[in-house]
């Protein structure tokens, strides 16, 4: 008895917002009654963030700065996106003003933090836009967000520090599913244990956590302030598990969705791997398993799969090198655009119960903190989807030094996430709002 009181107290005092899914929520009802085709209420908002490390070929990826607005010529690097031209906007001129490293395409991309912003620490980061979204949009789904990564390929792909695109509310790196197989299992692994037993196991898990909590408290009493700040991660981890258990408990007995796609094969790398991850993202949205997704995409293995034998970093410094480097860079852009076009196709083709498409309720963010080489100005940014009510089909040139975080803020607010600011944002981008 005492233990459970303890826990309740602990959860109350925790900083984490414990949002428990309720079975009568939209998400659940939709899943449970998908066959009957009911539900005609406003569809939930979804957000997808795709990051690709080493930037793009700046000569052939960006539309001309002169051709602002809807009547711009699609450059070669975006050619595969032609069929979607009226459904995405290229935003030009966004920067992350605190970032000064030319080798970190993703570390601060969604956070806008100042690496050196914490005196007495050599590294600092803050929450990423997707996790802000997850706190609001992720309440009613089995997973508040799905974080996807490319494992060992991330480091040489120019993403910089971090374990994925996502950073939690304390600015700590979040790890994610590293392969399509892992992601698939995370979403669709079937638990065949009888319900009663699952309940008993949850109870067991709780008593083990209670013990862990006691252990941590015992240690806490003997530590100084700095060490306790560190130990707080342990407490937070227990809270995270508790939150998840509560979520699991609410979902007990709700059958795992049937995967709309076949289980992926292992050992795919590069182009096929990214394509498969996109398929899994669609499957995750289709089954309403989550509404917020990030994916830190591989570049190095993408090149290998395109038969390019140049390492990704060298390629990103193509100016001044032989034509094969430029060619590699353009090949990369083309392949990435093809993949994105495929994702947009799927979003448009996937129907919601009310007859609309996923595309109507989803925001897709596609970009990097690096333009080319070590250039951090005009970070490549493509926004698509009608989920956040933005103006599509434009070549939107924003005023110089507009923070990337202004774009994230615009998208978050447009998706119904009530935040006033994000990272170093100074406000929304009015021209982006339809």
């Amino acid at each position, binding site marked *: 008895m005492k233990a459970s009181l303890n826990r309740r107290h602990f959860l109350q005092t925790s900083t984490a917002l414990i949002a428990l899914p309720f079975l009568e929520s939209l998400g659940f009802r939709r899943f449970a009654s998908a066959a009957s085709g009911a539900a005609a209420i406003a569809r939930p908002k979804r957000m997808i963030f795709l990051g690709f490390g080493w930037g793009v070929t700046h000569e052939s990826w960006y539309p001309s700065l002169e051709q602002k607005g809807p009547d711009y010529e699609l450059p070669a690097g975006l050619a595969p996106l032609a069929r979607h031209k009226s459904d995405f906007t290229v935003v030009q001129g966004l920067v992350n003003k605190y970032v*000064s490293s030319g080798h970190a395409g993703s570390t601060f991309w969604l956070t806008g933090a100042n690496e050196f912003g*914490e005196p007495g620490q050599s590294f600092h980061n803050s929450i990423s836009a997707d996790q802000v979204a997850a706190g609001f949009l992720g309440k009613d789904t089995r997973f508040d967000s799905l974080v996807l990564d490319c494992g060992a390929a991330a480091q040489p792909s120019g993403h910089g520090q971090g374990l994925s695109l996502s950073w939690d509310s304390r600015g700590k790196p979040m790890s994610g599913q590293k392969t399509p197989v892992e992601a698939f299992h995370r979403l669709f692994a079937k638990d065949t244990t009888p319900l009663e037993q699952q309940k008993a196991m949850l109870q067991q898990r709780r008593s083990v956590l209670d013990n*862990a909590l006691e252990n941590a408290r015992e*240690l806490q009493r*003997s530590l100084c302030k700095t060490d306790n700040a560190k130990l707080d991660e342990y407490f937070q981890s227990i809270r995270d598990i508790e939150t998840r258990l509560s979520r699991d408990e609410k979902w007990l007995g709700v059958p795992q969705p049937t995967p709309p796609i076949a289980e992926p094969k292992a050992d795919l790398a590069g182009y096929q791997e990214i394509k498969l991850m996109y398929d899994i993202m669609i499957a995750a949205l289709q089954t309403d398993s989550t509404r917020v997704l990030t994916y830190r995409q591989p570049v190095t293995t993408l090149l290998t799969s395109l038969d390019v034998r140049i390492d990704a970093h*060298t390629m990103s410094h193509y100016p001044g090198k032989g034509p094969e480097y430029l060619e590699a860079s353009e090949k990369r852009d083309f392949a990435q655009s093809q993949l994105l076009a495929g994702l947009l196709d799927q979003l448009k083709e996937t129907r919601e119960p009310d007859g609309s498409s996923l595309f109507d309720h989803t925001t897709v963010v596609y970009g990097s903190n690096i333009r080319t080489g070590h*250039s951090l100005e005009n970070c490549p940014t493509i926004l698509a989807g009608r989920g956040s009510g933005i103006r599509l089909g434009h070549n939107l040139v924003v005023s110089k030094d507009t923070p990337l975080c202004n774009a994230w803020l615009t998208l978050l607010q447009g998706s119904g996430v009530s935040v006033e600011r994000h990272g170093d944002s100074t406000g929304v981008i009015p021209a982006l709002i339809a």
Partner: protein
Amino acid sequence: MSPLSLHRMGRLGLLPLCAAAPIAWSAPETPRAVMPERHRALLEQHCQGCHGPEKQKGKFRVDDLPLTITDLATAERWQKVLGAMNSGEMPPEEEKQPEARIKTDFLDDLSQVMVTARKSLGDQKGVIALRRLNRREYRNTLRDLLGVSVDVSELPSDTGVQGFDTVGANLFLTGNQLEQYESLGRDALEEAFQAHESAALNKKFRLEAESIHRVALKRNRDSLDAMERVNRWIRAVDEAAARPENATIVGELRKIAKTDDALRYHWKKIPGAPSPMEFGFDKTSEVNPAGVYLFRDRTDFIRYDEYYLGLPHLDTGSYLTVTAGYGATGAAVIQGLGIPTDFPPGEYVVRIRAAATPDAPAGRRFLEFGQKGFAGGGTPAMSVHHITGTLDAPEVIEIPFTFTRQSAERKFRNLFIRERGAGDQGKIAQVFQEARKRNGFGPEAALWIDWIEIERKQTPPEATPPGIRALGSIPFDKEAAAPEPEKIRTALANFIKEAYRGTAAPEGLVDRLARIYDARRGVGDTHRDALKQTLASVLASPRFLYRAEPQPDAEHRPLNGNELATRLSYFLWGGPPDATLRALAESGELLKPEVLTAQTERLLEHPNAAQFIRPFLTQWLALDRLDLFQFHKGLYPRFDDATKSAARQEVYETFSHLLKENGRLSDLLSADYVVINAVLADYYGIAGVTGDGFRKVALPAGSPRGGLLGMAAIMAMGSNGQRTNPVERGAWVLRKLLHEPPPPAPANVPEIARLAGKLLTTRERLRAHQEDPQCASCHRKIDPIGFGLENFDAVGQWRTTDSYQALDASGAPDPGARKTWTIEAAAQLHKGPAFRDYFGLREIIASKKENFARAFTSALIEYALGRPCGFSDETLVEDMVKQAGEKSFATREFIHALVRSKEFQSK
């Protein structure tokens, strides 16, 4: 008074270790990030007009910008100046530009000042944050506690942020990860229980190599027989088709079947043509003769077989062959070499009795050993072995390895041995065809195998791991009944003390664990499972996962014996203290300086010291770059996996040698010897080195080898797998050897694009760096060093010429556009001496022993103390360099000096 002497004064207050009083720490910081006064002029002349008190364009002023950076706000303002000037944005194009030399110096100083400011503002001031066991420490800790090796690859690598993987501030924990610890703890216990149950089991299995070859021979005979049958069937069908009475039918068939082969697919329609079944083929061949044709063309292999069957010693052994594809006698890879299914996981040794053939070239006298599925995909070898035995006197090589429970569960029981490089399919096809062109049959056999033995070794009772020993007499086999509650409590208390590295169970913990145990029993768990679950929660508790050094208030205090033992063993072994160290810690003996020194020596001499050497060197010297790209196999066939792995090993082994001999650290800058094995000796062209063990080998005069710069691994890192990268090499030397790290690559510097595709030498290409101040400010220091190393090609081989091949529009080499040049390594260091060649450069670098000692010391401090080495550590750095310097920079002295320091010995 200089800041340094201030610090020295602060140190006079150093207290002896045993004192319980709080320790006085060093004096407060003097600001260091100071932009020299003379640069004010540039700001005044070129910036202030717009960014001064009057105009304040962009709300940015430089007139009131302090030259001394002491806070983040000032740092951000200077960062903005640096960014705007680096990108060429400021001063605006239409304005008068500063003189190139002045701008270069300005940018040079400012970028260095910014590095200093960042370091200074981020200084942790000696605070060592609570450290979680990092991934490898966690693995080693479970290994030492339970005698098992768990697969930790799913845990984060702890290198996600920056610095060493020991730096506490970076060792995060998340909910997911905590659950992984719980599950890995259970796995480890399960494996430990199983291992204990089978500890006494000794099993041996021997495979006589001639038996494999009998299988291969039969396979080959079958294949020859099939070939003969196919050809008879073909003749029979062709005869039928040639009969005049069948001419019309065949004529019709020819319309759809142009070739003879295609025609025979329609044998049924040709009267008199026999079924393949009459020639011994199966039913499917009637429908689809493609399967029959498969057996037709075996002539390549027949020639190879004729050669093979003529080799001696086939009655007692078998040769490893290098063949492309199925079919030859002998075995490309020894087949059927599996760990028998009734052999449990544990410590194994594989023995191979082998010989090299008399004519085998030096580079082919190596055998690779591996476990299928061990690393998935292309199945790289686990180890490479030099075969020095002869057919008259074969030798037995021994390969110890651990057969893990995960491998057993995944049924990864297949082992393989193969000739070096035989796993590389692309390369083998080429080797085979080249040999066939030369001798008509294929590569001559180089390695002969007599037998292979797999032994599972028993664990002697005295080697029972401490965590299992702590459980005392309580049973944990599957049928065991639950022992008395008191016995379980005792076992839990003992286990906790082992797991907590000597700290007794805190109050209430045993009770709580006993409740978990009872609860598990209550829901129907067996005693064994309940025990496992209970112990697993110990392995996920904070006192196990963190190296807690309790300290209720913010004062520094001396470590107690257990804490010191723990710091020392995680520093030098990457794992927990052993029984000896723990005993000395508990008795307090370890706090005596002479005992501590003796223990430091003992730890360094122990094989576990590899758990310091490898991770420390890998991270310090950034050796992971070796895996960042693929080396071009076509251009550099000799830099195969075996060479690459030996080249990496050379770095570790050389340092290990220095530690063992207490040699001079500066031998890493230049030495008249190398520490190599047979693989590398062959690669470096040094005769007379045999075997897999690395040893010191004297170099002939004038050799470019000796020291880090002469190592293949270091030079290969300074390439992209195809071409050398002088900038990467130069920056590496500045960072790692000279302790003058260039600032991080600045953002937004325009790339030099105008030289793309032009026929230029590397130096001509890099000369462009000197034209723009933004580039020159760093590259004038970096590039000359890179030029001096150009005699090493992309895989660290010595060369005297280089060439550039331009590609045409289609991406193919343009025959008219190729440039070859003699390498010119002479250059002059920025504000430093000139050198004529690589040897001159090496001499200059080798003379900077102190810089190198300081670089090494800073890295060592960061690694050992688990926090960045800041300016507040300057006294410590100076002390260590001084103490080591008094002993000619003998390598161990650095470690002793650090272990003796108050920073190491206090919280």
